[in-house]
């Protein structure tokens, strides 16, 4: 175990160096730029054997990933915001062709108005593209998830998107524990695809025309694989715990065992929320948080079981669905709770769009509101905008 201090992007580039993928096609975009930047220096220095392809757009970046992955390579890339938007068409092709690409999404708002700061509009906007999505609170979780993502992708044959907060995580230097190169190398092992285009002993075609008689079955295969990937994610996380001592579940519960009011929140703001929970606990208030790590596949039964005994829930969305109802996490979790016949008063907050700082006092306001709801059961307004000027 190596103690270090790295930014989120440095940590991910370092993980990629240890993974030593066959091909990395990338196009720079703030705040993910440093990943291909640092990684390309590893390529120039000869510390990795990777074929680095500087392409002319994100559409081309993911296209090159798809080609290289179909050819049989282990492939990684990184992007943010509009870059992910430009990849949109190819995201469905990557998942539809069942190519185990690992894509880092450093979360940033999607224009317009133009903004380079963090929210989750980019990855939430592509939540149905057939990628597994892992969300990370810190640089440590980003590093760990990237390493696990390689194995998860290759076992499930589903591409994985690892998401963490732009600037807040990507550019902040924090303490981190790194694994030895050889440990990572052994953990990810050698990628041995079952079928691949550069196999001289097998002449196959990938991604052919697939019409009414077959397309639906192939989409069902993907849906089944996504469902089954939950078990794979659990297995890989278990294996990772053995080499790192860090245990990851589908989500993290923080002081929810006896809590009455629970906040569901993704990524870096979950850290701030933990600080607020500790503070409110000192006042004797029974609050906790639940931080989903895996959003795709949505572990809806586990999540709802974990929330079953709460008296009030606040579900936090750092992205707006602009659907006249709620943010994406609220829509999905409230549907999940309904499917399990669990009815708990719940409230949705859209927060932190375009990098609006999420302060302790903001989250404290939310906790105090759900404590009130846990007592009187009354939700005045389902969807609220936290800290916006009306």
């Amino acid at each position, binding site marked *: 175990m190596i103690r270090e*201090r790295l930014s989120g992007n440095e940590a991910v580039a370092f993980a990629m160096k240890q993974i030593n993928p066959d091909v990395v096609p990338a196009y720079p975009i703030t*705040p993910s730029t440093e990943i291909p930047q640092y990684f390309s220096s590893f390529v120039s220095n000869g510390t990795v054997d990777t074929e680095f392809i500087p392409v002319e757009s994100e559409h081309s970046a993911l296209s090159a990933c798809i080609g290289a992955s179909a050819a049989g390579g282990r492939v990684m890339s990184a992007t943010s915001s509009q870059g992910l938007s430009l990849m949109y068409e190819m995201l469905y092709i990557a998942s539809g062709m069942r190519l185990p690409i690992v894509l880092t999404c450093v979360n940033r708002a999607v224009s317009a108005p133009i903004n*380079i*700061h963090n929210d989750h509009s980019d990855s939430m906007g592509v939540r149905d593209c057939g990628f597994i999505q892992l969300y990370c609170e810190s640089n440590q979780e980003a590093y760990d998830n990237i390493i696990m993502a390689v194995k998860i992708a290759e076992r499930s044959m589903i591409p994985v998107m690892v998401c963490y*907060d*732009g*600037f*807040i*995580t990507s*550019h*902040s*230097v*924090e*303490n981190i524990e790194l694994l030895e190169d050889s440990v990572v190398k052994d953990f990810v092992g050698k990628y041995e695809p079952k079928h691949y285009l550069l196999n001289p002993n097998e002449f196959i075609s990938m991604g052919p025309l697939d019409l009414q008689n077959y397309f639906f079955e192939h989409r069902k295969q993907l849906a089944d694989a996504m469902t089954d990937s939950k078990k794979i994610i659990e297995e890989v996380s278990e294996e990772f715990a053995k080499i790192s001592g860090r245990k990851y579940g589908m989500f993290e519960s923080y002081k929810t065992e006896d809590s009455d009011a629970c906040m569901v929140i993704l990524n*870096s*703001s979950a*850290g*701030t929320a*933990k*600080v607020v929970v500790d503070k409110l606990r000192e006042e004797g208030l029974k609050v906790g948080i639940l931080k989903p790590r895996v959003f795709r596949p949505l572990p809806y039964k586990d999540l709802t079981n974990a929330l079953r005994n709460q008296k009030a829930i606040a579900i936090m969305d750092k992205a707006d669905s602009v659907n006249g109802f709620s943010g994406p996490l609220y829509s999905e979790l409230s549907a999940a709770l309904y499917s399990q016949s669990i009815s708990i008063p719940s409230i949705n907050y859209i927060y932190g769009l375009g*990098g609006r*700082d*999420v*302060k*302790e006092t903001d989250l404290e306001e939310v906790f105090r509101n759900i404590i009130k709801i846990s007592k009187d059961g009354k939700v005045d307004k389902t969807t609220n905008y936290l800290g916006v000027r009306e």
Partner: protein
Amino acid sequence: MIEIRWHGRGGQGAKTASLLLADVAFSTGKFIQGFPEYGPERMGAPLTAYNRIDDKIIRIHSNIYEPDYVVVVDDTLINSVDVTQGLKETGGILINSSLSPDEVRKTIPEYRGAVYTVDATKISHECLKANFPNTALLSAVIKITNLMNREDLEEHMLDSFKTKFAKKPEVIEPNMNAVRRAYDEVKGGNSYDK
């Protein structure tokens, strides 16, 4: 937990200084955060950078609104930026300036906490024959925050310079001089009432 805010101008290395401080604190076994004010960095434009230092893991990921210490890399910023905003009176402000703490205090009359000055620019010119005030400022910050004693600081900086200047060993001693001088020459520390 100690929270520090740095004020500088794009290109002056305030961000680098905050990362260097994070490095020093890290080397003493602390948990650290070092982050710039997120956004485009433009040469000459005012910018801020931040540090958190603690003995236990730091989970908070918001900006710093009530810092314990403020470091001003360029004293001309005092006229245009509210450098003492939210600054705790139990903490202090360190300004890179040729003026004395009492003279500088007149420019920030509302602040009642400790005021320190160090002429890091002059030290840099004299020791390094160039304007790299960060090494001197870093040394002064470490002194006023009690992050390390002088011996540990010198030992750490020497190690760090040996790595950084592996190909230019002749600049190690001048940099070490800047560290020692700033540690000795930082002035002030009295709060308003005293």
